[in-house]
């Protein structure tokens, strides 16, 4: 099992979500986050006082999938989330030690299926 964490542009959420659902993924967790990588922030001015806003709004999608689905999910996310400009985001993949379904205590791949 792997956990796939994708940080994407907020306006790409619907497109990415639809592509993932279309490819057979049926569970995900979505969080509104703020952050920045190479993308520069922007300047805001309030009555002459300037503020540099470095942390920009992003959306984080988290999914846990079987090992053999990882490449497919990465491909789906990157294609759907890409605009080609700096700020499109990143995908991270982690090992998952265990998964438990709270309702019936299914474990492992049975819990995420």
């Amino acid at each position, binding site marked *: 099992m792997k956990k796939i964490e994708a940080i994407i542009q907020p306006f790409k959420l619907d497109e990415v979500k639809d592509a993932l659902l279309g490819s057979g993924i049926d569970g995900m967790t979505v969080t509104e986050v703020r952050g920045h990588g190479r993308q520069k922030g922007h300047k805001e*001015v309030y*009555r002459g006082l300037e503020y540099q806003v470095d942390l920009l709004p992003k959306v984080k999608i988290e999914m846990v999938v079987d090992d053999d689905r990882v490449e497919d999910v990465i491909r789906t996310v990157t294609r759907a989330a890409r605009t080609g400009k700096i700020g499109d985001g990143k995908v991270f993949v982690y090992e998952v030690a265990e998964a438990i379904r709270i309702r019936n205590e299914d474990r492992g791949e049975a819990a995420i299926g």
Partner: protein
Amino acid sequence: MMEKRKGASLVFAVLMAAAPDPRWAQMQAAVNSAQSAGDNAWMLVSAALVLMMTGPGLALFYGGLVRSKNVLGTMMQSFVLMAVVTVLWAAVGYSLAFGGGTPFFGNLQYIFLHGVGAAPNPDYSPVIPQQTFMIYQLMFAIITPALITGAFAERMKFSAMLLFMTLWALIVYFPMAHMVWGKGGLLNAFLGGKVPCLDFAGGTVVHVTSGVSALVAALYLGKRKGYPSESMRPHNLVLSFIGACMLWVGWFGFNAGSALSASSLATSAFVATQFGAAAATLGWVLAEWLRTGKPSVLGAISGAVAGLVAITPASGFVGPMPALVIGFLAGIVCYFMVTTVKRTFRYDDSLDAFGVHGAGGTLGALLTGVFATSAVNGGLKDAAGSPVALGLVDGHPMQVLYQFTGVAIAWLLAICGTLAVLKICDLALGVRVEPEHENIGLDVSLHGEEAYDFEGSAS
């Protein structure tokens, strides 16, 4: 400040002389009564409009400009003044402002509103009950101290604020209102003042006193912790936007209501108010657009308020074109005040009470001396009964000097009075909140509440 409606009465007097029929007298009484009802209706609506400027207008405008941890504390300051000043007004405020007495403050003839009832007070307005006049003027006494709260936002103790505002009203506002509008006041052009100053709706009484006192308070309390290095962005400009729009609408009650009757002078002041606000919006937006490259919403609404401030003293004395000029200049000057001047002198007038009200009020009061004309307001008559020249455009340059004197007195009273009152509050209670309270925010530390509970609403 007022216009006596003599036209209609004169017609009836002539008709009665020609035909001494008792029905004419009845008809005149009926017409007078209808006119008085119209005047009273407009003045009661105006009073309500001016109250709406403080709550929720100013509370929203200021509340949106502070950080989210201080929004309730900021709104509470405006709201509680609606209560405090009202009680103070009933006890002594109205009497000190509008009782007879010395040129500097009124006597106690109206203490506890003694004798203030349905009968008009012909010194102030012969066409509405004195009680209407009293409640209308109260709304000005409420908003004036509320304006000051913008300067010490996010850092003043609530208890000290209550004491400060009570003493400030007694020492600064009531005397200033008496000097400019009270019978026998030093600056009252219409009721025997030695220095005939023109202030239709409160450029000196409301905006110069509050704006200058705001600067004194901002300097006395010092900067907010972390200013200006930490981000103190307005937390909700939508609130400020709604508040500014309510201020604009309420200002028709403020300025047009100052005609104290539903007269053509009220219309004239209404028109000047609209043109002043519009031109100032454009002036501020233009200056900002040229300077920073972007026309901001905060700039547009700040410009509108600056224009409304500047047209206030002039509104019942100038025509629409001078109103455009006054407004446009106010937009540019106030933009310059809250950006360049504030940055240069490094004071934390947090919500720009001085930059907008102090500067805009001063500018408007001086320009009133330039553009005031008897063609708009013929209320000031010479011994022969014909209207006297008012401003520079009427060929009366001395008026500019009178205006300058009025402004100087307002500045002096505001500076000395505010310093004295702050010192008293500081010794008695301490004016500034504890540093940890400032970190947590006034909402939780002073009021035990939070404005926004997003976690709670999700479950």
